[in-house]
């Protein structure tokens, strides 16, 4: 069994995890980012026309918007970047995703064990909030909901090497990445008026 120190040492830097995803992302793939992933994704370079920076959001609903998009656009793979705190707010969405049979949906959970943007308070699923009891097993939950393709990565090298293959798995696909909290990581700023961004996204999707 892995000790607390070893667990910390094997966590991936959030930026490195996102860079690997950004490098692997194909041009026709939709990427939805939320909270910390949205904040860091926006720093990585020019936005892609099929990015949805889900700011402002109703926390936890990235997976649900992703489900809707995947249903409407079966020809596009939809990649949802969620946090573990966000996923805990909308765990039922995993069951809904499986029920809807969307092979083109990928849920990536950046699991840092805390509500990062509010000051790194532990989530109810993290060992730190459970008196040392093992943390919630998101991959186990996803499997139990019926996801066939479920992966967990704690090593950035392995994630970089396998990210494209994993994204290409028959979905719905669930990926948990053990990432380190970002010190001082605050809530992301909106990159612009949401209604205008929605229209731009819809136009890009139609092209």
């Amino acid at each position, binding site marked *: 069994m892995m000790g607390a120190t070893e667990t910390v040492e094997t966590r991936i830097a959030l930026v490195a995890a996102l860079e690997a995803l950004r490098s692997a992302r194909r041009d026709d793939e939709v990427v939805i980012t939320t909270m910390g992933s949205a904040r860091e994704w926006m720093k990585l370079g020019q936005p892609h026309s099929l990015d949805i920076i889900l700011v402002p959001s109703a926390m936890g609903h990235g997976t649900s918007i992703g489900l*809707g998009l995947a249903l409407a656009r079966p020809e596009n793979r939809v990649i949802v970047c969620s946090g573990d705190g966000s996923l805990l707010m*909308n765990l039922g*969405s995993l069951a809904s995703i499986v029920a809807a049979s969307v092979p083109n949906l990928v849920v990536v959970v950046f699991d840092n064990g805390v509500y990062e943007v509010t000051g790194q308070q532990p989530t109810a699923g993290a060992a730190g909030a459970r008196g040392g009891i093992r943390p919630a097993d998101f991959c186990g939950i996803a499997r139990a909901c019926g996801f066939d393709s479920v992966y967990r990565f704690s090593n950035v090298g392995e994630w970089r090497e396998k990210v494209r293959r994993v994204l290409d798995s028959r979905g719905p696909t669930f990926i948990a990445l053990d990432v380190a909290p970002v010190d001082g990581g605050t809530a992301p700023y909106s990159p612009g008026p949401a209604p205008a961004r929605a229209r731009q996204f819809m136009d890009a999707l139609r092209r």
Partner: protein
Amino acid sequence: MMIFDSDPNSVYATDSLTRQTHEVFSGDQIAALLTELGVTHVITVPDSTIGQWEPAIAQTRRIRLVRVCREGEAWQVAAGLYLGGATPLVMIQCTGLFESGDALRNVLHDWKLPVFSIIGYRSYLDQAKLPGDTCLVFTEPILDAWRIDYRLITSASELDVIREHFIGCRDAGRAGAALIAE
């Protein structure tokens, strides 16, 4: 006319409809209407009235039922569908409306996506099952608070009201709701 005391614990009503327990519409009527209106997906958490419409909706070729676990999901799934070019409709009970406030606020007001909904109005027609049901106190004020333009539907003769309201909202690019008495 429904009359309510200001104290939510002492709701009462005086109305000839009070003891009726019939459903306003059949599933076939709703399915035909939604098909006519071009709805592509119905995202739903059922209640005992709108849940009865599911088989008829599911049997249509043009509408896909999307079953979610909680009503907040429904608004956001609808948002994704709309962004993807579909014509979604959210179908939930008023209790689910209460539950899903932040999700609908985000979709309808932050992102200004014109999602239409059908909302079951619990205890409006039948107050025998749940005497003093506070749904009667809070449903319409909550819809007003969220600035959702709705039409209250209390009889089978009002199917056209739903149709006209849906079309009006669609043409204006704004959200709307049909509040169906149960």
